[in-house]
Every structure is written in C-alpha cells, then in structure tokens.
C-alpha cells in the first residue's frame, strides 16, 4: 500500500538541489520517492500534530555546507525528524538536512533501507566529511545517545558535548548554526529508560513513559536557530582549544533554550 503523496511535498522534493540520476536516486541512495513519502508523513506531524514553530530561519544558509548543531529533546528521534522537516518545509528553496544515524539502525531490516533512502547515513566521520565536502547540510546532536536518554525532569538541561563535531567543522571549514529544540521532553516524558527491553528489540534502550508505551503526546514543539558560528583551525588542535570552542556552542544553545523556556511559560 502506498501513501498518497502530498502535492506540496512533491513540488518541494523536485526543488531539492541534489545530483539525482534518471531513477530519482542520488549517489548515496537517497530517493525522491522515499523522500516524498517520508515528508508527506512528516508534514502531518510538523504542521498539525506538533504544529512546530521554527524561529530564526533567516540564520540558516540557503546554500553550501553547514552543520546544524543542537540539543536532544525527547526520548525518540522526534527532534531530528522535526528539524529535518523545518528545513524541508520552511526553507526556500527547501534543503535536505542529513543526520548521522545510530549504527544499530543499519542492522534492522526496513529501518536500514528507509534511513538510507531519506538521507540518514550511518554515523561515521567519513560520511560526515563527504557530505560536507559536497556542500550538503548536516544535523548533529553532540550530546549523543546520553542526550536522548534525558529524563523528564532534565528536559531543559544539556549533558556533555562530544568534540567530534567541532573538529569536523574546523577541518571542513564549515559554519555551525546552533539550534535549540523545545518541547520534545513534554511530548515524550521519559520516566525511565529500559536497556533490557531495548536489547530484546535490538536497540540500545527503550524510553518508558507514564503510560508505558513511547507514543509522543501532541504538544507544541519549537525550534530556535541562531546566527552561524565560524571556528578557525584544522581540527587537529589540542583538546583544550577544541573544548573551549565546543563550550561556546554549548553556551549559545543553552541561551537559546533559556529564551525558549521563557516563551513556553509565557514570560516576556
């Protein structure tokens, strides 16, 4: 059974600037058909279910290599999916945001295929460098899996950032657009994470919510993008230098979260 493709999505897929072959497939295996189906589904969640608001889109470059770097919010990959959707629906022309999928995804039938077809490659430094060298858009969550495991009470905090993204940005001379993703913790209020259950299903863990299953609630989600940050260097610098840069990005994201938090609570 095929999902009927939304005409707006179809038109936007056609406007993506990617090197398609005759079969509508790019050299990485991203497919127009799969993107159309995926974003038709994402459209419902982006426009209606979560009615996501994106602020600061003017800071996102319309062309060329860029890394969107932000916080994890919500125990499932909601944050990533909605950031990709905001690039697809609210940028003009639309941009395909590509994330780095957890390695376990590739071992699961269907998930492996779907991830590739919509541009989510396995999280390897080689992939990241290659995509940036081809002037594509990369989405990075430097908190890693620890970030998705945040509990409800910690939903507006940040855990430690890795430094891989910074070394990558410096090496590839790529601007970083920091963003804050708000509300994922309200949509999926995690009270615990079950590693045992996850193992049984071939995943690192399963988030447990008060109603047990991990279905997200229809709460309003927001993304705040801020001005691009540039960092000089080659990516081979000492840890202290790289970590100092990482802290600057982290501080920017923390301040965006602050703004978003106030707005969510109706404060000025």
């Amino acid at each position, binding site marked *: 059974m095929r999902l009927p493709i939304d005409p707006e999505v179809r038109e936007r897929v056609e406007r993506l600037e990617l090197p398609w072959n*005759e079969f509508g497939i790019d*050299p990485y295996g991203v497919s127009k058909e799969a993107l159309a189906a995926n974003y038709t589904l994402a459209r419902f969640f982006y426009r209606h279910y979560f009615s996501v608001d994106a602020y600061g889109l003017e800071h996102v470059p319309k062309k060329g290599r860029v890394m969107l770097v932000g916080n994890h919010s919500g125990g499932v990959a909601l944050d990533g999916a909605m950031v990709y959707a905001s690039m697809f629906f609210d940028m003009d022309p639309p941009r395909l945001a590509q994330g780095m999928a957890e390695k376990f995804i590739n071992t699961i039938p269907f998930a492996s295929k779907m991830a590739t077809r919509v541009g989510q490659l396995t999280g390897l430094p080689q992939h990241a460098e290659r995509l940036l060298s081809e002037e594509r858009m990369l989405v990075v969550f430097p908190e890693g899996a620890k970030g998705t495991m945040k509990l409800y009470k910690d939903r507006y905090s940040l855990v430690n950032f890795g430094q891989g993204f910074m070394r990558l940005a410096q090496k590839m001379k790529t601007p970083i657009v920091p963003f804050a993703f708000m509300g994922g913790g309200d949509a999926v209020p995690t009270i615990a994470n079950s590693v045992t259950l996850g193992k049984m299903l071939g995943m690192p863990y399963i988030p447990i919510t008060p109603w047990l299953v991990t279905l997200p609630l229809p709460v309003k989600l927001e993304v705040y993008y801020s001005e691009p940050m540039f960092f000089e260097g080659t990516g081979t610098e000492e840890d202290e230098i790289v970590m100092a840069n990482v802290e600057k990005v982290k501080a920017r994201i923390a301040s965006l979260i602050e703004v978003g938090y106030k707005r969510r609570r109706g404060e000025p």
Partner: protein
Amino acid sequence: MKVLVPGISGRLGRMLAERLVEGGHDVIGIDRRPMPDPPAGVELHELDIRKRAAEDVFRRVRPNAVIHMATVTHLVVQSEDRYRINLGGTRAVFEHSAAYGVEHVTFVGRHTYYGAAADAPLFHVEDEPPMGLSSFPQLADLVAADLYAGSALWRYSSFVTSVLRMVYTLGPTGHGTLATFLRGARVPTLLGYDPLFQFMHEQDVVTALVTTLEARPRGVFNVAGPNPVPLSVIIKETDRTNVPLPGPMLRAALGRFGLPKLPRGALDHIRYPIIVDDSPFRKTTGFQHAIDEKTAMHAFRDAFPRPVM
C-alpha cells in the same frame, strides 16, 4: 608495446585482447583454459601461469607490460585450489615480471576486497583495510592476492605496479558475479534491505584497463563507472522478479526453486552496499566511463532476456 595477458580466455580477457590488437599492440595470452577462435594477431599459450613453461614465455617474449587477469572467484572454483591459483599465480606473475624486464604490471582485483558490513562507510577509499573476511572467508584468497600485489609496490622497483579494485561488471556477455546473480528469472533479496550496487559496462572495464596501460599509474586504485543503483532497480530494469525473503528463509532457499546458490557470507553483499570512491583513478589516468547505468542494465537484459520458467 608487447602486452602479456594471463587469464586471457575469460570473456573480459578476450575483449581486452581485441581492443589491444586494435590499438596496435602485440598481445600474448596465457591461460590454462582453451580459447576457441582467438582474436587475430594474438599469440596464445595454453598453460598454467604457475608452471615452468609460463616462465619460458616471459623469457622469450620479454613483454613490456603485463595485465594479470588470472584470478578466480568462489563462483568459479569452489575448493582449496582457488588459493593456489590466485596466490601462486599472482606470485609467479610478479616474479617473472621482475626477472624478465617488464616495465608495468597491472593486477585486476575486485572491490569486494572491502567487504560489506552495517558499519562500513559508503564510498571506500584505497587505504582502508579489508573488513569483510570474518563474515565471508571465501574472499580471503582474493584479498590476499590484492595485498600481495600491493606489496610489489615496495618489493619491486624495476617496474610500475597498478593494483585495480574494480566494481561489478554488467553487460551483454553476462560475465561476472553480479550478472551470474541476475541470471535467473527470480532474484532473491533480503526482506527489508535494498543495498546500492556499483557496476560498470564491460566495454568500460576494458577501457579502464587500456587507460591503465597507457597512463601507468603507480599505486592502488578503485575503478568504477556510473553512480551506484539500488539492487531493486537493477532487478526491475533487467526484467527480473524481485523475491524478498527474510534472512533465515533465504539461507534455506538458496540453490533451490531456481534461485542462485550463494555462500553464507555473500548474503552480507545483498544486505549492505560495497561502494567505492574512484576519484583518484579518474584524476590520475583521466579515465571516463562511456556507458551509463541504464544502458548497461538494458544491455544485459537484451542479451539475457528473462528465462521462461
């Protein structure tokens, strides 16, 4: 130029010989298989490259260049003998080349060297180690031959060595691993997986070999043609039926119901892609493929229409 081609009797060997003769080269072929109706102008020796008589050919002919195509896959020889053919033959080619004044040796290897795995990068580069051996031991001899050929780069300074890792071949001769896999009316795939496949038309394979002969690039190079295509598209475009089966069921069904026979490890090759970055080869030699993916698939389909069951 005098060009010696061990493994000339294969389909690619014959096409290469024809192209070399056209280009005005003297072609000398060695193969243990007979070559019925060899192209005009080819001097043919029906013997084993590992035997004394092969050395005599090197001594007498004194070739300027050698293009070594005498390696076999598990699809052709399914025994321990494969190790001896691939490794012993490759060793003989390099030793004789050093002894008899050859200027350039090309080793024709395969891109399956890199192996297929869940955590392998798309677009392998030449300096990566082979990672697929634990899951697919049938590749060990070809990987070892590839590495051995690479060691000639420091072992022998008297000639230039080019080690080529070529992607799958697809075209009207129906030669090669991918073409063999697609031969039947039904092609088994793994349910929930649809890896990218990289292939090039056999005429482009020959062009790449001739380009290597002319440019004499020193080093190890990935060689590819058009952009990769998902397996499902290849099956559709060659007018076959895709039979997606869950892993355990597929393992049990292989070799039956008109499905091709595959070793266990080969399943990883229809689960995960093996894609190479061929930009260094193109940059160094100026090679460009002439035949796109659609034409190659249709050429195979027209030469091997879907068998009537």
